[in-house]
């Protein structure tokens, strides 16, 4: 085995140089030159400030905005950094709830979410994505059903007619690519930006 030490060390060093340095840097170079928007995270700016990424969901609590899905991400507790607290749509700590299908916590959480959204008048049909957390906690999309269910409440908060708001939702519906690939969805951030532009 000793005679194999030299090739082992040399091969690790060479492959580190090739696949650990040259390969990612070359891809970075090409990507930054040819596809800078995507390579830098599909950032959206408004009036010169970065408001987020078109790919990453953000937390919406106000009645004036469409809400995204519940998010299970956490962040460090400001009072005690060794603990974590709920921090929805924390884009530096992606995670799902990992609650199993028979979890009592899951059923209670879904119940509470339904009751609060119902009380706020935002839902008339409980779409599956409205009551459940996503895998990443950063899901930028909601289903068309969930978006349309919120249209009335958003219209009321903005003093718009429901049909005006529904028209914005429909303009922001994304269908399946080639009619087959993917699922119908609405990007919540883009939808809310479109709403802001309306007024």
């Amino acid at each position, binding site marked *: *085995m000793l005679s194999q030490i*030299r*090739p*082992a*060390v040399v*091969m*690790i060093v*060479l*492959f580190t140089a*090739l696949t*650990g*340095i040259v390969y990612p840097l070359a*891809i*970075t170079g*090409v*990507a930054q030159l040819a596809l800078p928007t995507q*390579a830098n*995270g*599909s*950032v959206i700016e408004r009036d010169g400030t*970065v*408001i987020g*990424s078109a*790919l*990453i969901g953000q*937390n*919406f609590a106000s009645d004036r905005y469409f809400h995204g899905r519940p998010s299970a991400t956490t962040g460090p507790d400001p009072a005690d950094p060794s603990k974590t607290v709920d921090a929805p749509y*924390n884009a*530096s*700590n*992606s995670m*799902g*709830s*990992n609650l*199993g*299908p*028979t*979890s*009592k916590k*899951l*059923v209670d959480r879904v119940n509470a979410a*339904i009751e609060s959204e119902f009380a706020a008048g935002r839902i008339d*049909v*409980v779409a*599956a*994505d409205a009551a*459940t957390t*996503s*895998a*990443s906690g*950063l*899901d930028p*999309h909601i289903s068309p059903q969930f978006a349309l269910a919120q249209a009335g409440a958003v219209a009321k908060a903005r003093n718009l007619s429901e049909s005006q708001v529904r028209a914005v939702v429909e303009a922001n519906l994304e269908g*399946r690519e080639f009619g*087959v690939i*993917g*699922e119908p969805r609405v990007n919540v*951030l883009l939808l*809310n930006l479109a709403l*802001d532009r309306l007024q």
Partner: protein
Amino acid sequence: MTSIGLAQIAIVLLAVIGAAIPLGNNIATVLAGERSLLSPLLSPIERVFYRLAGVDPAREQNWLAYAMAMLAFSVIGFVSLYALQRLQAYLPLNPQGFSGVPADLAFNTSMSFVTNTNWQNYGGESTMSHLTQMLGLTVHNFVSAATGLAMAFALVRGFSRAESPTIGNFWVDLTRSTLYVLLPLSIIVALALVALGVPQTLQGSIEATTLEGAKQTLAIGPVASQEAIKELGTNGGGFFNANSAHPFESPNALSNMLEIWALLVIPFATAFAFGRAVFDYRQGRAIAITMMIVLAAGVSVAYWAEAGGNPLLTEIGVDPSPGNMEGKEVRFGPAMSALFAASTTGTSCGAVNAMHDSFMPLGGLVPLFNMLMGSIAPGGVGAGLYGFLVLAIIAVFIAGLMVGRTPEYLGKKIETREMKLAMLAVLIYPLSVLAFTGVSVMLQTGLASLNNAGPHGLSEILYAFASATDNNGSAFAGLTGNTPWYNTTLGVAMLLGRFAFVIPVLAIAGAFAAKKKGAASVGTFPTHGPLFIGLLLGVIVVLYLLQYFPALALGPIVEHFALLAGKTF
């Protein structure tokens, strides 16, 4: 289940097979040492590697020397990766200023990447510097996969050669697999992923002010380059904690399909490459068909289970028609989540685009059982083929016993020594999975890590050890693995699953290579037709159901019935 969902699944699988056949030819050429399309470009680099390493590419090794070279390479890789993590605070390219990784976590992570497992007890964006991600993790994504391919072809040479004392040269197989197979494919897939929206930058994070005026810090980095080899090398270690569910790792349905394609294509191609290497493409085809049957069965069960929604939530008013959406992304939905889950565990990839922990009991049973079978449908890069060939040897042996003839596979007589080694290899898995799970459920420290109570808790622990032993790396991620107990035991399970399996496999390769190759006669059991495929499937089902049914009955199966009875935990 909808027809569109089934069509999505069919499109991906057809694209995999369509590409695997030509790629298989290419892999066979590369590992036979022949010239290929890229030789003019790559052979100068290849020669530099051999010269600096002091390797004579023409000099072959016997199985023991081959195994020693592989072990030496793995040990050096382990030590360097461990040091890199511990020292990252003092090294450059650490824009977020992360401190050194703790010892037990660094042990677990090094073992994980050297064995092609990529189990992650850390959140990538919150633990590892860019330097560690690039220098440490990306490198092992390449070379651990190349090591798998090398070992598979060492075994293939056992069948294709007669009376040969050697089975190839490990350094040559390693170098050629990386340069000619993994690197070119990774470049193409990485750039395609960037075009679809995956970031590739050396920045650490983006500060944003949301529409509501809150601060949002978006972790970012050289994601696409790692993502490509993560899938192609069936590694599975994500740049981000949420893996391919994170919109920066997979922003849309097309990137999702590309990633599933990438993680399946080399393992299927390796089956076809095997057929070519033994000069009988029907042998490779029979193995590829068997792999596809097991994979398709798993996808069907998972999709069926996930598409129906969770009855406990339906009862309180949630619409069941979009399926069980807890732990799933809207852009993927249940069909693509089920296909990803079955593919990532049918290979030893372990990337996820949905949280398996939140799957329905029978939906989660599919990835769990896929791993308990040793991820053989179609298996990890290289690992799938050598795992499958071990099962083929057992199947042929059983067929031989039934008709009372000395069993033969591809003209090689299977005798006591090979059967003992094959059984040794397949028994390592249940020993590691069941023993570690059994001990963990008896210890307070093992149970303290659980995120779910009741039978689902047992599933979490069983899943963890299945994943580690199988070198898969996916998780029922509710389990807190970053504790001294799990960091250590899971690290040991990965070690056993890789090396205690592959050393007997290399010994089998040496034994077969030394044997004469008998000519086929009318009495030879054909190993390329439906009868053999059926026998192989039968062996797989009997072998693994017998080993694991009691454990599965206490986990996902009892949870399924509890769910039907409306019980929560």
